[in-house]
Each structure stands twice: as C-alpha cells, then as structure tokens.
C-alpha cells in the first residue's frame, strides 16, 4: 500500500469522528505548547539575568557579607539593624582600593535599603543605594541626563541624588520626565535631583535595577539608613585576567582585618564573587525552575499520549468489522498495523504542529503583554515535534498490534 493512500485512509478515518479526533489531539496540543512556552520563558529568564549581570561589567568583583553568618537584618535595616553579622566597613573598602593598584583600579562601597520616596504628593517605595562617585565606572552605571555626584558632594554629605528611570516612571508616570532640579523626599529627607541614570533594562528575576535612587554614601549611612556597615563593595579590576589574583588579595586582606581564624573559607564573614559566580548562581536557579516546569509539561504530553492510546483502543473495537473485511480481501497484519499506527501518528503530529504554533504564539504574546523576555529555541521546537510523533507511535503500537492480530472470522462476526 503506498503512502498517499495510507494517508488518505487515515485522514478519512479520523474525519469520521471529528469531535473525538479533536479532543484527542488537544492533549498533545496542550502538552507541546506548554513545553515550548516553559522552555521559552526559562531561556528568556536565563538570558535576561545574564544580560543584567554582564551589564555591570566583566571586570567587577563584589565583596559581600559572608554566607556563614546568620543575617539578622530585616527589611529597611533601621537603627542598628546590621549587627555583628555584617562587618564590612568603609575602612575595608578604602584599604582594598589603596593596597592593590596593580590589580584593582577602583572600589565602590555600597549600602542598600528600601525607602519611601515622595515627589509632589506621590508616594512610592523604592530602593536606595548609597555609594561613592566610583560607582559609575565600577558598576557601569552612567547617567543619561544631568550628572552623578562628585567626591566633594560625597564627602561633604550634600543631599543630592540620581534617579533610575523606573523610579521616575513611578513618580511621574513617564520614564523620560526630566526631574533634575526638583527636590524629592527619601525617608523624609529632602534631596536635590541632579541626574538620571541610563536604563539597565528590566529583569525578569529580582527587583528592577532601574527602580533606584542613588545618594552619596555618607548621607545614606548617616541620615537615610542609619548604619555603620557596608552591604557590598564593588571592586573593579584592571583586566579580567587579574581577577583571580585580586580575589585572593581581598580574601587575605579581609581575613586579617576581621581577625578571622582558619579554616577558610568556612569561617569567612564575607565573600568575594565575580560576575561569573553570580551568573552561574542565578542561572542555576532559573534552570532548576525551567526543568521542573518542563517535567510537568512532559508529563502532560505523556497524558496526551495515553489519551491517544485510549481512543485508538476504542477505535479498534469499534472498527473490528472493518478490520475483518480488510483481512478477508487480503490485508496482512502489517497493513492493519500500519493503518492504525499512521492514524495515531497523524493525531500526534498535527497536535504537535498546532501545539508548536500555539506555544510560539503564546510566548510572543507573553513577551508583548507581560514584558517577559522569552527565547524560542529551535531545538525545543524540533524536540517537541519529535517527541509528540514518538508519543503517537509509542501509544499507538499497542492498539494497532491488537487490531493486526484479530482473527478475520471473529472480526467479521463481531457485533
């Protein structure tokens, strides 16, 4: 039997009970669409995390408080919120910046916290970064409007600030409003806006990096957050190649300064991380999530396959007489097997194709409407199609072989 007539036969059989064929297909359609959507979201998330981290610069090391100590700090660490757990000091940052000129070009000590921001009656919560002018180069954060504060303003505790565009939007309704020259309240302290940061781009994980107000370190520590410890120190290395060395130097220095005893790194109260460390860490989170969701999607694909098997079994029973007739006029077991296998595969393949269209479409829709970054991988498409065809074949085999083994006389007498 040639392929075209096989196909025609299968399509005719499937068109006889359209509603049933459609419902059977639906299982596969949804399975494939969900697989594609989930993979697209997962890849999109990994990519935007990567973009975000890379946007900070590849020479950047970040010194943070150590992972070993319990963090007692709660949201908005007011008063003596950061206790013994965080021992990074401004002095630490200064020494790191001075001691290793051959490997380290600049340091940007930072304190961070959540604040209330107010402008002309509009109240919103945002995050504050208190830092030094080196922040611009170390964290790759240029201004798009106005200017960043200088070291005089920093050391003199002048109350000036630079805003991220997302915060501008929250305050005024537009990212592009020029707020320079206006005065805003940050935790009830008035600040003169002197610049707007260039956008970093929205993140699909974590807080929006553009929803921020940057103020001089001294002001942040004394007036806004009331803390004597740093949350992190951005360290800019001379070249990417010296980063491991710089990492070792910082480790050694801080261990002495903090009077730490071996074993290291177990007793460290700080950690030095490169962008690659951050990248792998947050990507592994994204990957775990993607994998879990994909597993769910694959299970739904298998459920769809069982649906196919169920319908094919019903179909074999219903068409017992037809099988008998076909055998009586010379169909071999292989002919019958093929007939039912092709039917099952067509259900799965058409379902797979529709699922691909649906998956790609909904990914695009999600990107457009929700603003999530989604990445359609061609491998995921091909895989989804192959898997759905495979599901059709696999779950079609049992009913098909059952049909092919029917005894012609019994089949003809059926009913």
């Amino acid at each position: 039997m040639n392929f075209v007539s096989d196909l025609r036969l299968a399509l005719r059989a499937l068109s006889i009970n359209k509603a049933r064929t459609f419902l059977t297909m639906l299982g596969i359609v949804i399975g494939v669409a969900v697989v594609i959507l989930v993979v697209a979201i997962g890849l999109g998330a990994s990519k935007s995390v990567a973009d975000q981290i890379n946007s900070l610069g590849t020479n950047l090391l970040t010194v943070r408080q150590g992972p070993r100590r319990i963090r007692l700090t709660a949201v908005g660490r007011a008063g003596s919120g950061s206790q013994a757990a965080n021992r990074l000091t401004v002095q630490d940052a200064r020494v790191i910046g001075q001691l290793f000129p051959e490997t380290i070009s600049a340091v940007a000590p930072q304190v961070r916290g959540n604040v209330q921001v107010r402008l002309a009656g509009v109240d919103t919560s945002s995050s504050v970064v208190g830092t030094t002018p080196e922040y611009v180069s170390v964290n790759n954060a240029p201004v798009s409007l106005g200017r960043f504060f200088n070291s005089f303003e920093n050391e003199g505790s002048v109350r000036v600030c630079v805003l991220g565009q997302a915060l501008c939007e929250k305050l005024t309704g537009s990212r592009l409003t020029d707020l320079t020259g206006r005065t805003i309240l940050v935790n009830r302290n008035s600040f003169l806006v002197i610049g707007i940061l260039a956008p970093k781009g929205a993140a699909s994980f974590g807080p929006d990096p553009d929803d921020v107000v940057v103020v001089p370190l001294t002001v942040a520590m004394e007036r806004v957050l009331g803390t004597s410890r740093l949350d992190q120190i951005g360290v800019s290395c001379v070249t990417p190649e010296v980063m491991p060395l710089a990492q070792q130097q910082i480790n050694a220095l801080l261990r002495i300064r903090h009077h730490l005893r071996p074993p290291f790194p177990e007793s460290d109260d700080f950690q030095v991380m490169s962008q690659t460390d951050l990248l792998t860490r947050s990507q592994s989170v994204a990957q775990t999530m993607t994998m879990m969701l994909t597993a769910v999607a694959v299970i739904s694909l298998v459920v769809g396959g069982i649906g196919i098997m169920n319908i094919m079994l019903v179909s074999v029973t219903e068409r017992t007489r037809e099988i008998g007739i076909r055998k009586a006029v010379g169909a071999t077991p292989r002919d019958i097997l093929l007939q039912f296998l092709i039917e099952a595969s067509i259900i799965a393949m058409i379902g797979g194709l529709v699922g691909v269209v649906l998956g790609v479409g909904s990914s695009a829709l999600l990107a457009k409407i929700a603003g999530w970054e989604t990445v359609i991988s061609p491998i995921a498409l091909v895989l989804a199609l192959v898997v759905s065809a495979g599901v059709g074949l696999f779950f079609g085999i049992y009913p098909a072989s059952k049909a092919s083994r029917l005894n012609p006389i019994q089949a003809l007498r059926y009913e």
Partner: protein
Amino acid sequence: MEVAEEDQVDAHADASATGPLLRLRGITKIYQMGEQELLALDCVDLDIESGEFVAVTGASGSGKSTLMNIVGCLDVPDAGSYQLDGVEVATLDEYELAAIRNRKIGFVFQGFNLLARTTALENVEVPLIYGRRSNRTELAQQALQRVGLGDRLEHRPSELSGGQQQRVAIARAIVTEPSIILADEPTGNLASLQSEEIMQIFQQLNDDGATILMVTHEQDIARHCKRQVAMRDGRIIEDQPITERLRASEMIARMREPLPGSAGRR
C-alpha cells in the same frame, strides 16, 4: 481414510492432468463450547474443477458457512488437507494466507460487508490496494461496469439498495480476477427480483469462465448452478449435477412480464 483418499485421487486423475482447482480431504472442524465439542465439519471431501458453478445447500447449522470460511482461507480446519491450485494451505503463514485471500479468492458475504462511508469505487479498490496493483481506479471501474453499476461509482453503501450493495461486493470479489469466487448466501438478504439479478451476474461470470462456489438454502437459487452439494450435520450427503438449470435472464423476464404497464418496456 487413506484408502478413500487414494480412491478419490485415482478417480480424478483422468479428469485433469494438473489436478482440481480445489481439493479437500477429510476436512474437520470442531468447535469447543465449554464442556461440549461441536463437530461442525466431519471429514469433508470435495473437489472443484476450474469453471464449475457449485451450490452448497443444507439445513441451518449443517456447516455450510464453516466450509466456506475454510475454503476462503478465513478459518483453518482442525484436521484434513486443503489444496488450492495445488498448494497445501495448512503450510502457509499469515502473510501467505493474506496473499491467497487477495489474489485467488473473491468472497461475497450474505451481509455485503462493504466499508461504510466509503464510495462504491473505493470499496472495489480495497483488494487492489492490498495487492499493490497499479491502475486501480480503471480496474475498479471495469468491475463495477460488469455488475451493472457503472453509474453508481461515487455512491456510498448507505446510498445504495441491498441488491446494489451486493453487486458492489461482487465487483470487489471479481476485481482481482480470483481463481474462485466464494459466496455465502449472497441472496439471503435480498428480495426475489434482486436475487435473480445477482444470479444473472454470477451466471454471466461463470459463462465467462469464472469458478463459483456458493451457499444457499433456497432450492430455486441452487438450480441456477451447475452442480449441487447437499450437507447435513457437517457431512456431504449428496453431490450431483443440476439437470434442469434455470437461467436468471429468463426468470427476470418472466417476473417482469405480468406487471401491468410494463408493455412499453423492452
């Protein structure tokens, strides 16, 4: 039993040098119904030559259908030997049996057994598809023309009368030009005029050289054939040529004659 077999072989040795088309010896079929054993066929011996037109008659339950199914390679006997065209059927596997059913046998059932939702033409094409034949549409059309349905190619079974459905089934049986046409009560579901029309087709086919073995329990239908084999309780009790043979064409003419207002017709 061996002696009887040899006798039979001798008796037919002169009739044809190549042997009969169909040769059954000691064919036995037993149905197991729980504790009971039911002897559906009891040592049936039968020879059919090429070109014969044989009617199998007998009471209900006498084993006619069982015999036809075995001859049609749809069922296998529990004992005995069955040779078709000199080939011992018992030695064949599933695939070879399928090929025999496809090429050497044309089966016509009492209940038509056409594929539903499938046109007459496509129904007739089915055996050609499994026989991997080319120019299927052309052959199927010719077969349908031979049974007088050249103008019903695109009709589905539900759009055809019983007689027409049976003619489609006959077209399907003859389209592969089989060695033998087997028909199990082909007129069983039909009124007398339709039955005569079916018999007319069979007689025409037989005149053209086809070998036909058909089951009927109507004596009137059996008399259209050339030879009658009567069965009872799974045995052949009578096997004789038909002397006063009926011609279906004459019967049809006679049936139509007395109808008022039919004078204008041919």
